[in-house]
């Protein structure tokens, strides 16, 4: 099946001459959760804004479900829901009025039952008559999501959805994302909380200085780029690492209780099996053994640093 969003050769140069995006090519698969990671100012929000029609691109093409975002903007935009990073709501409108307004704005016929369901799902129903200005930050965030979902989008953009959000809302939000995905909604999120991308995303894209540095299936990414660590809890402390083990570049903890071996699938360094054999030969005994995968965060930091 063709991808739901296809971005090809997109660039953006602002009037100041700042090149926010340089030649972006990216395809988002139908029904996936795609996490776009990148440091501040990398171009995440600019890219989202272009796809949603908020910012004009300098060159390139974007299509949403086969609809060009310029020639066929009505069809393209009516498929998209956007939750921007900033809490920007008309402060004097009631929750009920503003969510129904959003639905109308996107050309959908009034459907009070549906809007009620959206508000209930987001625990906003009790606040339906409250003015937006009286809501707490977390409630405002829920309202922004309700507005984005009011017109039943097939693609949902969440730009830093959990920045400054408490644990409860964050969990609610991720439960909601999973439900939407089950309904076949494609979700593109940007986040600074990399553990969330790690927990939620199917694929991960990294953007840095206006360029897509990498797009990879998350599991694949962690497998190919992820380092592994082998931790050995020693039966008796070692003063020094035996000579015969020097080629493994082991690290000994200060108290001599633990040996750490770091390796990755691409490295030339010898494998775990030979290490274990050599340990036995050297007479080093251990009482426990553990392996750790490096997190997406470490992968991300490495990638961005390499690009710097």
């Amino acid at each position, binding site marked *: 099946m063709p991808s739901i969003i296809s971005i090809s050769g997109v660039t953006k140069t*602002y*009037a100041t001459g700042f090149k926010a995006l340089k030649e972006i090519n990216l395809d988002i698969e139908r029904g996936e959760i795609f996490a776009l990671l990148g440091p501040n100012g990398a171009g995440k929000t600019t890219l989202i*804004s272009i796809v*949603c*029609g*908020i*910012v*004009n691109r300098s060159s390139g093409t974007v299509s949403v479900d086969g609809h060009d975002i310029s020639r066929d*903007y*009505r*069809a*393209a*935009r*009516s498929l*998209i829901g*956007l939750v*921007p990073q*900033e809490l*920007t*709501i*008309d*402060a*004097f*409108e009631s929750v009920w*009025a503003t969510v*129904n*307004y*959003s*639905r*109308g*704005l*996107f*050309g*959908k*016929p009034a459907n009070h039952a549906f809007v009620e369901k959206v508000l209930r799902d987001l625990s906003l129903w009790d606040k339906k008559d409250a003015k937006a200005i009286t809501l707490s930050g977390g409630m405002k965030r829920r309202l922004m999501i309700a*507005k984005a979902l009011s017109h039943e989008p097939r693609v949902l953009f969440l730009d830093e959805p959990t920045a400054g959000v408490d644990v409860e809302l964050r969990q609610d939000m991720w439960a909601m994302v999973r439900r939407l995905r089950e309904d076949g909604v494609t979700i593109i999120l940007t986040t600074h909380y990399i553990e969330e991308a790690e927990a939620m995303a199917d694929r991960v894209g990294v953007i840095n200085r206006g360029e897509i540095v990498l797009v990879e299936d998350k599991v694949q990414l962690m497998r190919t780029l992820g380092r592994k660590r082998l931790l050995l809890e020693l039966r008796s402390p070692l003063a020094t690492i035996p000579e015969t083990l020097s080629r493994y570049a082991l690290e000994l903890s200060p108290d001599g209780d633990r040996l750490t071996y770091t390796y990755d699938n691409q490295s030339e360094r010898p494998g775990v099996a030979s290490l274990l054999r050599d340990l036995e030969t050297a007479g080093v005994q251990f009482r426990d053994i553990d392996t750790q995968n490096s997190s997406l965060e470490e992968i991300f930091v490495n990638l961005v640093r390499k690009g710097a």
Partner: protein
Amino acid sequence: MNPRAVWAIYKMEMARAFRTVLQSIVSPVISTSLYFVVFGSAIGSRITEIDGISYGAFIVPGLIMLSLLTQSISNASFAIYFPKFVGSIYELLSAPVSYLEIIIAYVGGAATKSIILGLIILGTASLFVPLTIEHPFWMLSFLVLTAVTFSLFGFIIGIWAKSFEQLQLVPLLIITPLTFLGGSFYSIDMLPGTWRTVTLFNPVLYLVSGFRWSFYGKSDVSIGISLGMTVVFLLICIAIVAWIFRTGYRLRN
């Protein structure tokens, strides 16, 4: 077309007016009454008649125009500037609506409000002075045409403005002087020769003159020219808006 979006925006804009009913309706009515007290009674008692019309009645069309212009501009400029200022404009820009639909909704909303206001002022004025409307069709046409034109002009200002100060600047520095000097409170025949010629370059003169003609059948300039100039100004505004939307000026950059 996305008529639901046009309706949603229009409804929202009208709801805003009713929420701020004091500011939208009551305050212009009070200021109009004050004009009547000051100009109509104090000055009017010395001028008595212009072109055979009592001074109090003479200034009514000008007063309505004054409110119509300033309110159309402030309604429309604020309506589009405010979402730009707080950032909620993202939703409008990401929605499947055309520029034409955005214009129809916002300008329609602003113009509706100022037309209602104009009629309220007319009603208020009728309490102070005896009024005749010789050409009701043209009176309404001028009312609608002016409201739409200046709402469009206000919309342009709202998009252009980068601060609240700029938002106030054009109405304060250009529109208010033009309305006061455009023959709202006097006939240009009362001016000395040079100033009379200068006044002919003031577009507001043509609006006020045409509007007054629709009431009393008397005008400073011919009705054809009045109508022509109003339409020309409308076309200029449409051209500017078309350019703004083609380039994304201060909206999508």
